[in-house]
């Protein structure tokens, strides 16, 4: 009897072990699964708010449906064209100028002959990545403050008249590009530098033996090797073009209303609609619109990237 029982049990032993293994793995996964459910999935159900006129006392379910009213309110306002235009054009500028600057830095870094120098530049280039946009806003303030700022100080010393930076929207696209480059370019140049490191050293050696100078090597050898990385990273950042860097647009401008014509983006608009105006329906609607277009863009750009270089695709 016991022999039979044992024989029956034997294959089950592996199965049982498998079950207990899976149970253990589930307990390890569970905290994160619950966290994601509560803080990522429950808000997804909350997008019904976009179709409701939210009333705190009635709760989400009890509030009245208003159909597409919230969307109509946004799209028929002047804010829609302004925020969409600013988001897209500023992001396009950041991507274009940022990419060119990071490539130039990466190529220069790659040609730097001394190891110690490379380490020094790597460290300095990472520094802006380590600080918050609040820090950047303090730097901007020190430069741009109208009465005591460094830039106006210099203008006055040269005999010019001070510029009221914080009230004139026309200067801000350029200012924001500068700070975006300042904060992000060092880091992304290190990515490009990284992919240059993967190139076989003999190729550069051969070019050098053929008498190519540093600039020629950078232009005719290094740059072509970077093209795949540039393509992929650029396409991926185009996937994010519908999402603005809230910290940059909110902090560096000191959220100044006079600057909104050039600095108001979708994300700052959603924030104001929620926190300052308290229009929960509309801010959810704009948020949902942004999420949907953002997702479509990420999926589309990913499909393109997968064709070029499957390893770099996110999905």
């Amino acid at each position, binding site marked *: 009897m016991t022999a039979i029982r044992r024989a029956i049990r034997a294959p089950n032993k592996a199965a049982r072990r498998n079950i207990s293994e899976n149970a253990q793995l589930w307990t390890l996964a569970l905290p994160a699964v619950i966290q994601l459910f509560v803080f990522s999935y*429950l808000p997804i159900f909350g997008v019904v708010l976009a179709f409701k006129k939210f009333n705190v006392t009635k709760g989400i379910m009890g509030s009245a449906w208003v159909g597409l009213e919230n969307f109509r309110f946004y799209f028929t306002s002047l804010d829609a064209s302004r925020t969409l235009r600013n988001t897209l054009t500023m992001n396009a500028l950041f991507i274009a100028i940022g990419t060119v600057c990071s490539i130039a*830095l990466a190529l220069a870094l790659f040609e730097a002959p001394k190891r110690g120098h490379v380490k020094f530049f790597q460290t300095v280039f990472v520094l802006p990545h380590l600080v918050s946009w609040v820090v950047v806003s303090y730097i901007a303030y020190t430069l741009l403050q109208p009465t005591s700022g460094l830039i106006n100080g210099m203008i006055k010393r040269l005999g010019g008249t001070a510029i009221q930076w914080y009230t004139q929207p026309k200067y801000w696209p350029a200012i924001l590009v500068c700070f975006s480059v300042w904060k992000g370019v060092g880091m992304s140049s290190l990515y490009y530098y990284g992919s240059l490191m993967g190139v076989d050293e003999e190729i550069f050696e051969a070019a050098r033996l053929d008498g190519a100078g540093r600039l020629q090597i950078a232009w005719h050898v290094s740059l072509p090797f970077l093209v795949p990385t540039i393509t992929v990273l650029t396409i991926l950042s185009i996937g994010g073009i519908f999402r603005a860097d809230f910290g940059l647009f909110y902090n560096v401008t000191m959220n100044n209303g006079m600057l909104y014509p050039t600095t108001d983006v979708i994300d700052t608009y959603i924030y104001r609609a929620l926190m300052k105006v308290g229009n929960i329906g509309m801010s959810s609607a704009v*948020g949902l619109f942004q999420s949907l277009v953002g997702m479509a863009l990420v999926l589309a750009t990913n499909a393109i990237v997968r064709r070029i270089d499957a390893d770099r695709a996110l999905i």
Partner: protein
Amino acid sequence: MDYTAPPPETTRPARRSGGREGSSLWLMYAILLLFALVILFSFWIIISVSLTSTAELRYGFRILPPRFSLEAYQYTFANMKGIWNAYGVSAVYALLGTLLAVAVMSAFAYALSRPRFQARRGLTFYVFFTMLFSGGLTPSYILIKQYLKLYDTIWVLILPGLVNCWHVMMLRTTMQSLPSSLYDSARIDGASEYRVFVSVALPLSAPALATVAFMGLLGRWNDWYTPMIYITKNSLFPIQYLLQRMLNNIQEAMNMIEFSPFASSVDVSKLPRENLRMAMMVITIFPMMLVFPLFQRFFIRGITVGSMKG
């Protein structure tokens, strides 16, 4: 059993420079130096203003203070109780948050890395979907404020951002790339999954854990956004949020000062101004600059080796 692979180089071997092309080398160095100087200059001007005395501020900010004064720092250390409280909140937020996050994420990543885990594919999609689509700010705000009642508690800083999907994926990829023979031998020895996780997977993915921990510390220390949305209590302001408010509102700076019983006699015009704010900013940047060298090895290597996906 020692599995640490030789560290990949983050710089390439020195190369002899030909004298003939000195001018193009100069161009390369000019580009690098220009950008490096712009970065260092930006930090310097904050420091410079923080070292200017209040009396001399009215002549405007200077690249070099007319004479170095520690007035703003002395004032901060002596009078600004509020800023030390904010410093404490930030420290708790960064340390506790990162500790919990690394624990939760590495356990999750370990489960996702095990081929025999049946829910592996389903859960991987579960993570990916949150990276693709989010409900947005407003539904989260209503959820946290109306339903979870986390508004104005320290937990609103810690819980919502606990699991970062990119970090989970990075840890999972690292754990997957460890040789499976290590796992198998531990399992044959009768070790439970918990044990394998703690004594095999964790120690062997130390560099990835260090990177994730550093990015977690950095993100939390630098976070002003979460408190801006969810915190209204002064005693729970983290340092970055306090500084953000202070830049826009000098009144905020004055609230942070512990007034004497003769508060009404305080001459407002004598209160330290921009130099004080810049001094607080310098004190705030400091810890991350201090911690960075400890993690720099992993961090720069992680970028340079170019593990976009891992």
